[in-house]
């Protein structure tokens, strides 16, 4: 068993002048302070990647910069699923005894470190270089295709409610990128991006960083325990997905729950990847946290609100806390830990005994699920 003993999360948004290494360092400093550890007590380091600081060896670039001499280090790349993949790996490594205390860190000045055109163009390259990219798709276009199929099979009118909920949650979260209240009508009337997705269906591009300390469970050092962790990878390119309404999330989440001996009905908090409203709707429904086609309706009815039956992304998610790349989904875990500790301030829900976290990368192609148990 492993525990998360420290979290660090910077504000997300436009943090002009901060580099990838600056943002990683800020988050790492906060995570070490939170864990009550010195640099020398860290013997493992796992990092993500940064589109504004591409490097063959980002982990050791950071280790040198920050002042670490780990016995184990490398970087991981799995698109949006990277954050939870890092956590799963750290969990496996401490359980295997390869390291004792691992710092997991990511950060990127994705907004201010490049032009918006450069960011959009870089991200669009996850498409197939021969059969997709020459047609001029974008990340929103890949998800627009997914959303069109969802609309065809289930109807899509209510998924705007998910964006409304994320914005309301962000308004109570210090450091959130977008906090101005929005309505479902504003989402539906916002600028078209990739039909049926509109601007407010899409997460912003942000600067930010996040970090965790993950160590082998020790009764003297409290923190949420990782009870289960699993992945599923079904395809890479949207053209190669066998279905645009069923992905690997059910498989991944199901195995993570089974590993932890936890039933979905025991989960009291959900932290689910929400790059677009459609991403969140599909993942909630596929995992089984909402019936097919009903995620938006449940959001409207308050089911996913902080006072509802299944609080969801109470910090505002990618849609409103923001999305800085690898650190984006890590904010979901930082918030889950805060909720478990009772440190979520005005957003505090009943401290959840068990939480389910799920991230996806690519176009719903790479899935990572985590089951977290409160271990105060």
């Amino acid at each position, binding site marked *: 068993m492993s525990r998360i003993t420290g979290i660090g999360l910077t504000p997300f948004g436009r943090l002009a002048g901060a580099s990838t290494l600056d943002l990683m360092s800020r988050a790492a400093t906060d995570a070490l302070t939170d864990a009550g550890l010195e640099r020398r007590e860290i013997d493992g380091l796992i990092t993500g990647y940064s589109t504004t600081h591409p490097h063959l060896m980002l982990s050791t670039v950071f280790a040198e910069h920050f002042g670490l001499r780990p016995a184990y280090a490398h970087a991981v790349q799995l698109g949006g699923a990277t954050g939870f993949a890092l956590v799963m790996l750290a969990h496996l490594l401490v359980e295997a005894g390869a390291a004792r205390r691992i710092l997991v860190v990511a950060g990127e000045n994705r907004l201010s470190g490049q032009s918006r055109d450069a960011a959009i163009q870089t991200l669009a390259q996850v498409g197939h270089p021969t059969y997709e990219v020459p*047609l001029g798709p974008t990340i929103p276009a890949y998800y*627009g295709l997914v959303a069109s199929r969802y609309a065809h099979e289930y109807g899509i009118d209510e998924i705007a409610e998910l964006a409304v909920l994320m914005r309301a949650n962000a308004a109570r979260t210090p450091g959130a990128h977008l906090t101005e209240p929005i309505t479902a009508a504003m989402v539906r009337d916002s600028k078209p991006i990739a039909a049926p997705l509109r601007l407010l269906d899409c997460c912003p591009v942000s600067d930010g960083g996040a970090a965790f300390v993950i160590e082998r469970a020790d009764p003297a050092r409290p923190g949420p325990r990782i009870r289960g962790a699993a992945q599923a990878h079904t395809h890479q390119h949207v053209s190669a997905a066998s279905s645009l309404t069923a992905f690997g999330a059910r498989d991944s989440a199901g195995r993570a729950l089974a590993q932890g001996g936890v039933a979905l009905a025991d989960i009291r908090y959900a932290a689910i990847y929400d790059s677009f409203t459609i991403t969140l709707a599909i993942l909630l429904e596929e995992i089984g946290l909402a019936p097919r086609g009903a995620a938006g309706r449940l959001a409207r009815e308050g089911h996913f609100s902080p006072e509802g039956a299944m609080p969801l992304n109470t910090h505002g998610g990618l849609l409103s806390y923001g999305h800085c790349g690898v650190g984006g989904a890590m904010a979901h875990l930082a918030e889950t830990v805060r909720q478990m500790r009772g440190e979520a301030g005005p957003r505090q829900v009943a401290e959840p005994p068990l939480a389910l976290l799920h991230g996806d990368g690519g176009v719903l192609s790479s899935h990572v699920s985590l089951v977290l148990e409160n271990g105060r």
Partner: protein
Amino acid sequence: MSAEIPDWTTGREGLALARCRACGHVQYLRRPFCPECGSEDLGVEQASGRGTVYAVTVVARAPSPELSAHAPYGLALVDAEEGFRFMAHCPPEGVAIGDPVLTRFRSFGAGLVPFVTPEGTP
């Protein structure tokens, strides 16, 4: 062998597929082997271009300044009658999921791309 079959990815109007002679699997995203059984015995064929729209979007915000002059453009995933799925351009209006379509080709950016239109449109 494949050089004889026109293929838009090499700048010649045509949609090509590769069929595995060992297991019959049809692939569009081409590799020199069958991803199902590993056989390297593939036959390249010309696809008819007839298919059914599986998903469709309209790109309002192009990925690069060079392509923004073309926006908005329609983008579809089409299920070809030969049993593979492909991405194609389509008109930004008047194309719906389930529509039977035919494939033509048009210039876009630096090359040629498939362009599907509903059957019966001129």
